């Protein structure tokens, strides 16, 4: 009798377990076993000590200082930029060389090139007044363009277009003087030839 009851109990248990097994969901499982879910217990003292240490680090004060320094630097850069712009607008600006070192070097290079050509031009004997007149006129025109560019920078601050135009005036000066040197040479050659023919 006892063994019959025991085997009946086992069957009921098995069936109950089977039914429970079939219809449960993960939500139910964790609902039922929530108290056991935190298997891993961290060392609270260690974590807490580190939290306190992190919180007391002067890192935040330094970060604040660093942030303030960064803002101050940014403001300084803006002020310098504005100051540069203002300086350009003032009359002190009389050549590209006054703007920055790179432009100063470029301008100096062009001036040297032009002076060499100018010496060459002057060294060639010529009594052609018209040629000298043309040269003077064209150089005056280029001077006016250069001055306009400078005025534009004084009024509106640094701008690339004005710089390009101003540098271009130097290129044109050099090309003009080269052309006139060639003309002088050609004339001289023609004169020499005609002298030979006369002889």
């Amino acid at each position, binding site marked *: 009798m006892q063994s019959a009851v025991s085997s009946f109990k086992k069957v009921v248990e098995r069936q109950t377990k089977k039914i429970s*097994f*079939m219809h*449960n969901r*993960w939500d139910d*499982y*964790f609902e039922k*076993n929530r108290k056991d879910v935190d*298997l891993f217990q*961290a060392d609270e003292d260690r974590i807490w000590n580190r939290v306190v240490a992190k919180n007391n680090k002067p890192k935040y004060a330094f970060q604040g200082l660093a942030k303030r320094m960064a803002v101050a630097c940014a403001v300084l850069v803006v002020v310098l930029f504005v100051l540069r712009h203002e300086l350009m607008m003032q009359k002190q600006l009389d050549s590209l060389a006054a703007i920055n070192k790179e432009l100063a070097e470029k301008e100096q290079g062009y001036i040297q090139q032009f002076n060499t050509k100018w010496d060459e031009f002057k060294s060639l004997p010529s009594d052609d007044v018209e040629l000298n007149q043309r040269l003077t006129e064209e150089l005056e025109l280029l001077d006016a363009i250069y001055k306009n560019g400078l005025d534009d920078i004084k009024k509106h601050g640094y701008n690339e277009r004005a710089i390009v135009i101003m540098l271009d005036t130097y290129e044109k000066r050099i090309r003009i003087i080269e052309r006139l040197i060639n003309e002088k040479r050609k004339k001289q050659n023609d004169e020499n030839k005609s002298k030979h023919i006369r002889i």
Partner: protein
Amino acid sequence: MAYRIVGNQFDAEEVVQDAFVKAFNKMTDLKDVNAFAGWLKQIVVNQAISLIRKQNRLQVSMESIDELPDIEEEQIDLDWPMQMVMEAVMALPEGARVVFSLRIIEGYKFNEIAQITGQTVNNCKVQFHRSKKLLSAKLKK
């Protein structure tokens, strides 16, 4: 909770520490004192997700999902030992483990999980489905 999301003790402790420091610094943002637990939990979750996203670990990996048998109905024994279940959960791939933990253990909705993890709701559902498949396959062995 941090351990379940990041999957290792070292990162979990780091997350908890950073979360506490953040909480101290933002204490003034907390309007209702009664909401402290939920507020802190949210900081921990965000911190943990941010860490695994930083480490680029939260990928939607679809490999081997189709090889597992489909689960028509969740077959879970309420008497399974928690140790065994949690070991299986922790052995899940990163994305699946995070979504499963947030959905089932922490009780977040899919749209909330998507927002927290920066994935789409569909991706989260796929990860969740995958996690259940993998868990069933592992626990029924």
